């Protein structure tokens, strides 16, 4: 099957007929269509073949919350954006160079984002009067000159697909459904993607359904061949492989990386993993993935609700497992009381929150970073919890392992804040050697013997007698003879752990729990600033966290390329902060904090370090674009030298 695309039609990828691919260094392609048009699948396959080809990639799937939103409407448009490049890239791209629009609604929804001169591939079969109306077009955009600044290619994708798949014997109604493969074939030809990975995938994926396998294969080839033979395309393009560091790579999404990180944490700690979880967008994929890996000693429970998800996970931790729960914002609300119990019981617990637009049900399929303050403070009483955030899809893997390390070593719940953008976005990920991953088993240290001698000489077990260095309490697992003890949500006496209402003891215990979490700062790496001029050298520090990494770093590089001096500090540990953070922040005249919320990290650093940080804030359910951050950096640099603290805060500036 290796060269089959072409062998069946006498064309070959080496393009003997004179089409020489023009080299380009990067391209941003957006596939857009109805929710049911299979655009996510097309994007996903294009991503896979580009990754295998060796490009650097970054992706951004963007789809409606409804499973089948009203067909043909703008609300129902589902899109998948992919940025492929011959050099390392950090974002899925601000403005597509190519838009594949399967219907008028997809065109309408995405034209405003396109780069001038971009290519638009239209499925002209879908541009009938009714569809135009449904999309809200008064005039046909193909003829009203509204697309004059783009190169528009009209391709009757539906009818060509139906014609092409005839040999498979597929019924007309089903035949039409292969048109995403036609589009994929056409775009694959345009960008000189090797067809084999896609065709091999189709053969494997639809091995059980011969008709569908054939139809999709035929549609893909028809799309490819259409590009090859149709006169309307003046040339194909080629994006050469990127120069990535040596190693073995795979294409990974944030959610898969989280799930693998959880599996790895269990293996590295030599503990069974227990996941208690309730389905919720965009976190469910982590539950799905972990449910596959029972042979790693991973137990998964689809609980009756979010509360039982975290409750069973904490119960499993009590019983000696690595307890994990996964959720998104509304679920984190419901888990708050149990996280508070975990703070009081001082047991390891991993709480993974894949943030989405809020409040309430909000925007289930869109991204946001607005759960930071909830993670920090969203419990009654003084209930500090370590908080971490990964910065890229691949970083999700390492951040889970770090979160597990802290949870185990300090016997504490840890909240990991991913988000919808990381969850579904994908990037090439250099696979680590297992031997290079940290050994977490030394941090487990489950108790096996009494730890206290009473004045009468008897040896007893005191569940709240702390390690003097970490302030962590011993973890005595049921089944261990001689260590029977009772613990609960009531305040416990320091040491013995017996119920205590003593005022001074409560004061002490509140402070000890806070000190324990604050002390983790000594056990995490200091903040490392990306500043070519050394710490404090640049005119502006951009402080960011989580999924904004790509856009911020790309913006910082672009600004530097323009000769300006700007530093970037990206935080993984949000509670406690790295011990040197205050010094770093004070080393800069200005600090800009871009966030996909209304300024939550900014509020934290201002409160903690009295630093007059500015905010760049966006809460549209979309990640930052590089240019938005770049503009804000330039504006911030531009205001340097004017009156001190001139109040020109960028708070609320949206992209």
């Amino acid at each position, binding site marked *: 099957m290796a060269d089959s695309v072409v062998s069946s039609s006498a064309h070959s990828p080496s393009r003997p007929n004179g089409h020489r691919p023009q080299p380009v260094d990067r391209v941003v392609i957006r596939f857009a269509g109805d929710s049911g048009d299979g655009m996510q699948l097309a994007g996903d396959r294009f991503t896979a073949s580009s990754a*295998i080809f*060796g490009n650097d990639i970054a992706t951004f799937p963007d789809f409606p919350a409804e499973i089948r939103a009203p067909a043909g409407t703008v609300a129902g448009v589902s899109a998948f954006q992919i940025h492929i490049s011959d050099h390392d890239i950090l974002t899925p791209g601000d403005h597509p160079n190519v838009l594949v629009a399967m219907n008028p609604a997809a065109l309408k929804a995405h034209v405003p984002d396109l780069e001038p001169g971009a290519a638009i591939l239209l499925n002209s079969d879908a541009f009938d009067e009714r569809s135009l109306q449904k999309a809200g077009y008064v005039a046909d955009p193909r003829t009203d000159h509204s697309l004059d600044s783009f190169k528009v290619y009209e391709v009757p994708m539906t009818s060509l697909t139906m014609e092409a798949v005839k040999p498979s014997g597929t019924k007309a109604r089903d035949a039409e459904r292969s048109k995403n493969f036609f589009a994929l074939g056409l775009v694959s030809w345009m960008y000189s993607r090797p067809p084999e990975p896609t065709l091999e995938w189709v053969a494997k994926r639809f091995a059980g359904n011969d008709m569908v396998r054939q139809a999709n294969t035929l549609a893909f080839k028809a799309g490819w061949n259409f590009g090859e033979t149709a006169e309307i395309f003046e040339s194909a393009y080629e994006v050469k492989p990127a120069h990535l560091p040596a190693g073995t790579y795979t294409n990974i999404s944030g959610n898969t990386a989280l799930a693998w990180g959880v599996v790895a944490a269990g293996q590295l700690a030599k503990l069974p993993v227990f996941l208690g979880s309730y389905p919720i967008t965009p976190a469910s994929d982590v539950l799905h993935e972990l449910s596959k890996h029972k042979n790693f000693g991973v137990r998964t429970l689809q609980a009756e609700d979010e509360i039982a998800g975290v409750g069973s996970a904490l*119960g499993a931790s009590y019983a000696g497992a690595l307890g994990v729960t996964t959720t998104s914002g509304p679920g984190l609300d419901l888990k708050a009381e149990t996280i508070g119990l975990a703070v009081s019981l001082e047991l390891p617990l991993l709480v993974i929150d894949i943030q989405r637009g809020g409040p309430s049900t909000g925007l289930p399929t869109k991204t946001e970073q607005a759960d930071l303050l909830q993670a920090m403070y969203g419990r009654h009483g003084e209930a500090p919890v370590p908080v971490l955030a990964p910065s890229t899809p691949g970083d999700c893997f390492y951040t889970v392992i770090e979160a597990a390390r802290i949870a185990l070593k300090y016997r504490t719940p840890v909240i990991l804040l991913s988000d919808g953008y990381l969850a579904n976005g994908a990037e090439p990920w250099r696979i680590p050697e297992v031997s290079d991953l940290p050994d977490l088993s030394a941090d487990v240290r489950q108790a096996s013997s009494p730890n206290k001698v009473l004045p009468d000489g008897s040896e007893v077990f005191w569940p709240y007698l702390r390690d003097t260095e970490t302030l962590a309490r011993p973890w005595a697992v049921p089944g261990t003879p001689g260590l029977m003890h009772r613990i609960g949500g009531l305040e416990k006496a320091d040491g013995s752990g017996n*119920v205590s209402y003593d005022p001074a003891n409560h004061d002490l215990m509140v402070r000890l729990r806070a000190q324990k979490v604050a002390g983790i700062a000594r056990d995490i790496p200091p903040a490392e600033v990306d500043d070519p001029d050394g710490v404090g050298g640049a005119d502006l520090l951009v402080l960011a966290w989580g999924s904004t990494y790509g856009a911020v770093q790309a913006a910082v590089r672009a600004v530097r390329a323009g000769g300006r001096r700007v530093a970037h500090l990206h935080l993984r540990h949000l509670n406690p902060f790295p011990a040197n953070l205050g010094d770093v922040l004070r080393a800069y005249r200005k600090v800009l904090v871009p966030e996909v919320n209304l300024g939550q990290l900014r509020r934290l650093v201002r409160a903690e370090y009295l630093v007059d940080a500015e905010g760049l804030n966006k809460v549209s359910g979309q990640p930052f674009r590089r240019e938005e951050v770049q503009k804000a950096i330039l504006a911030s640099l531009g205001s340097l030298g004017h009156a001190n603290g001139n109040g020109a805060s960028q708070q609320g500036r949206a992209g």
Partner: protein
Amino acid sequence: MTDLAAPTTTRKDWASDQEVRWCPGCGDYSILTAVQLLMPEIGAKREDTVFISGIGCSSRFPYYMNTYGVHSIHGRAPAFATGVALSRPDLHVWVVTGDGDALSIGGNHLLHALRRNVNLTIILFNNQIYGLTKGQYSPTSEAGKVTKSTPFGSLDHPYNPVSLALGAEASFVARTHDMDRKHMMEVFRRAYEHKGAALVEVYQNCNVFNDGAFEAITAKDNRPSMLIPLEHGKPVRFGPQGEKGVVINDQGRAVIVDVAEVGEERLLVHDESRPDPSVAFALSRLANGPHEPTPIGVFRAVERPDYGSLVARQMDEAVAKKGPGDLSALLRSGTTWTVEAGQ
């Protein structure tokens, strides 16, 4: 191992060093005593025993047992205990809860623990009142009850915990009361020996906020005529001379009859192992409250694979099929490609 019947522990071994702090005269004391006396008899091991509770007067129970114990969150004990039981099939996990804890704030978790048949022994102290918050009506309080939160009488229709558990197809459902230690111990022993979720409702007197709620049926003199003992394989009959009995009528309802009138052969012969819960449910509907003749004992005890064993089997099957997990292979399970140095 010479004499299996000889207990290796005594009641004292099962009592923690903590002072018991229920109100003097509370029915909880007799339940605690029954459990502490039972443990040596059944040969339980303290280190393998875990008591999980929620919040409420009854939920202080774990503090008084010299075992592993967690006093968790209001209503969430079954959820927490599910995590313990699934992770550690080698442990015996008890849940101690009350009518507010299990049936109001935690109703959802109880239902799901029962339907999944998680290996838990659940003791539900039903005193038909909120005690710890000082006297509000509970989901088992009778309609019309005057409490601090219902000065004009409660408008709520109460539920019957046994009916509820049978509706969730619990594999073991029983009822006992705090005035009869022997009966309690026997029912607890049966619940302990049951593999899967066992729910025992204990009618428990709150002598401060709802004193005498069960007196009409549990006072020594009233028991013969007001308690209907359910015994597997025996006709259901009661009364000082056994003159009353229970039959299932044409509509499938359980009704009380005079044995002399209908004849002993027409009486329902109690079969706790009946797969269908309908007859047990009909029995649970005999009394509208603890002022009418009320069945006690084991309503239902059927064998059904417990959830923890099913989970463990899937884990074993996964290892048998795929081999023990290989992390390096997992990370390479997608499509991979290699970038050479200097490329």
